[in-house]
């Protein structure tokens, strides 16, 4: 079968040889003009499904704390992870990536921070993108894959509605501690002021 996809790829290989290969064209205008390094925070969830907003809220608190310390942070909020986030992840100035998400938990559950495992992401997945898949796409498509972590905050109520449950509210008060722990985790000394 004649494959235009193969022909296209062959053409791109030739472009690479002549150093015409470019990084992603559609960098979001929201990215800083400066190429100083920065952190990228991607928070996702539905604020009209009560505790599903927990990741969004926690991320906002952490970003606010970091920016007050002069740390350059890009902050993205989405309802679900989408493929085009890859272009932001793979941008040259992104040094570390933090994903924030709510998960189903119990009243006494605690925040979890885990390194995003790139190598474990090659399994067949459905339409639902995971942080690991996004990081893998960044590596495969754009040859740039910063270190990444996933912060999960457990929720107990995901019905339609606004506002978060008391357990989530309690966990949100630990944002300052979390913000420092994340900096310690990556031994990040800070970047240029935005």
């Amino acid at each position: 079968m004649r494959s235009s996809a193969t022909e296209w790829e062959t053409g791109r290989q030739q472009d690479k040889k002549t150093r015409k290969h470019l990084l992603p064209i559609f960098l979001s205008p929201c990215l800083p003009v400066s190429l100083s390094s920065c952190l990228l925070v991607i928070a996702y969830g539905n604020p009209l499904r009560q505790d599903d907003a927990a990741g969004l809220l926690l991320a906002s608190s952490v970003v606010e704390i970091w920016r007050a310390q002069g740390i350059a942070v890009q902050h993205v909020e989405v309802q679900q992870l989408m493929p085009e986030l890859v272009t932001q992840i793979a941008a040259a100035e992104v040094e570390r990536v933090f994903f924030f998400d709510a998960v189903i938990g119990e009243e006494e559950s605690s925040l979890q921070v885990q390194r995003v495992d790139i190598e474990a992401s090659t399994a067949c997945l459905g339409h639902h993108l995971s942080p690991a898949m996004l990081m893998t796409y960044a590596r495969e498509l754009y040859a740039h894959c910063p270190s990444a972590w996933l912060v999960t905050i457990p929720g107990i109520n995901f019905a339609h509605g606004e506002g978060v449950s008391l357990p989530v509210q309690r966990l949100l008060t630990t944002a300052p501690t979390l913000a420092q722990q994340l900096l310690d985790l990556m031994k990040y000394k800070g970047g240029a002021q935005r």
Partner: protein
Amino acid sequence: MSRTVTIDPVTRIEGHAKITIHLNDQGGVDDARFHVTEFRGFEKFCEGRSFWEMPGITARICGICPVSHVMASSKAGDAILGVRVPPTAVKLRRLMNLAQIVQSHALSFFHLSAPDLLLGMESDPAQRNLMGLIQKYPEVARKGIQLRQFGQDVIRMLGGRSVHPAWSVPGGVRESLSPETRDQIRTMLPDAFTGLDLALKLLKDALPNLEREVGDYGNFPSLFVGLVTPEGGLEHYDGLLRVMDSDGKLLEAGLAPERFREIFGEAVEPWSYLKFPYYKATNGTYVNGSYAAGMYRVGPLARLNICQFAGTPRADAELRQFRTLAAPGKPVTNSFHYHYARLIEILFGLEKISELLEEPTITDTRVRSSAGVNQLTSVGVSEAPRGTLFHEYTVDENGILQRVNLVIATGQNNLAMNRTVRQIAQSYVTGNTLNEGILNRIEHGIRTFDPCLSCSTHAIGQMPLDVQLLNAQGEVVDAIKRD
């Protein structure tokens, strides 16, 4: 002994679903069903809210096509106010709506369907996904991301954010388009066209090897429904409702969209949370005694079938080619050609965006009309990527919602999706032989409709589902679970 084979969950669609296939004693397929197991709830949640909030609230039904709900909701709000939206605001809403068509269709083609089309329907399932596509055709994957990002960037540049833009409101839009932003979008168009050209070439190259699939994936007569311009052109934002039968006869040439209840009803079944919209007979009852006889399809395939022309040069050229897929004067009935129709709509969207940007008044700053509540019931209709979307509101004198009904595009394709599943199962399931490739074919049949189950059921996200094998007595004889 009869068996029922269940595919659960269906992958690479938005939301989650289950499919059951009912086999008879001879191993033939008696029936197949597409079950949606997620519960709708936004309509009840919105009661007691102000209609002003609805664009923002209903946008959060979905993270893939929120703009569709923003548009339909805003238009329902326009009707409550009884205002005429400033012409520039209409153009800007069209611009955003078209950008969403581009990004959503790009996601559907490149990320959800391309793995099957380019890697093969029965290729290794561990590779037949976006990751496999990236590894084998990385530049194709990049182009797909870029084309989708074009649409997302236009939405963000107009509305401040690419997901859930708080921009279109009852009466118009919040912000006008600056000349600088207009010029920036112009510079992005050439690369978007390049990505679309690649997609068209890929699909046309793949089609000769997919003849059987074209014939078997949802190829049956049905009605087709959508919006058209008053002149009968391709339309996504406004216009009139048109209904065409499978012989090309117009049952409704151009009905005011707010009168949709006169011709459409909604049935329910105990085995699915997704309703079954159908076309009513002229006396208001079922066609031929069954609601299923009033089955109709919406979305790209329907929109291209019912329109007489697209209205932009390259899209019209592709539309002429599209029409050759059916007998002269007849609509294209193969659901597999939703893929092609989707790409034509991307092309139309890009051309139309280019035209809109050239209009002198596109940067006019008068973009919002103001009024109070002047009408207590309203209907807002818009074409979402997946088909016609209706928002129906009833408010009190203070604009507080008393009743909300959302008729979602995917729901209107429900009967057709069920028929497609049965047709594919009957073509590929024989005796006791089942393999993953056959299951993927059935899933692909669903994917041709690009359903958004998150929209049609307003679900929260993943929900692990079981595969169940049922005998003729309804007893579970086997079970499979997909992660």
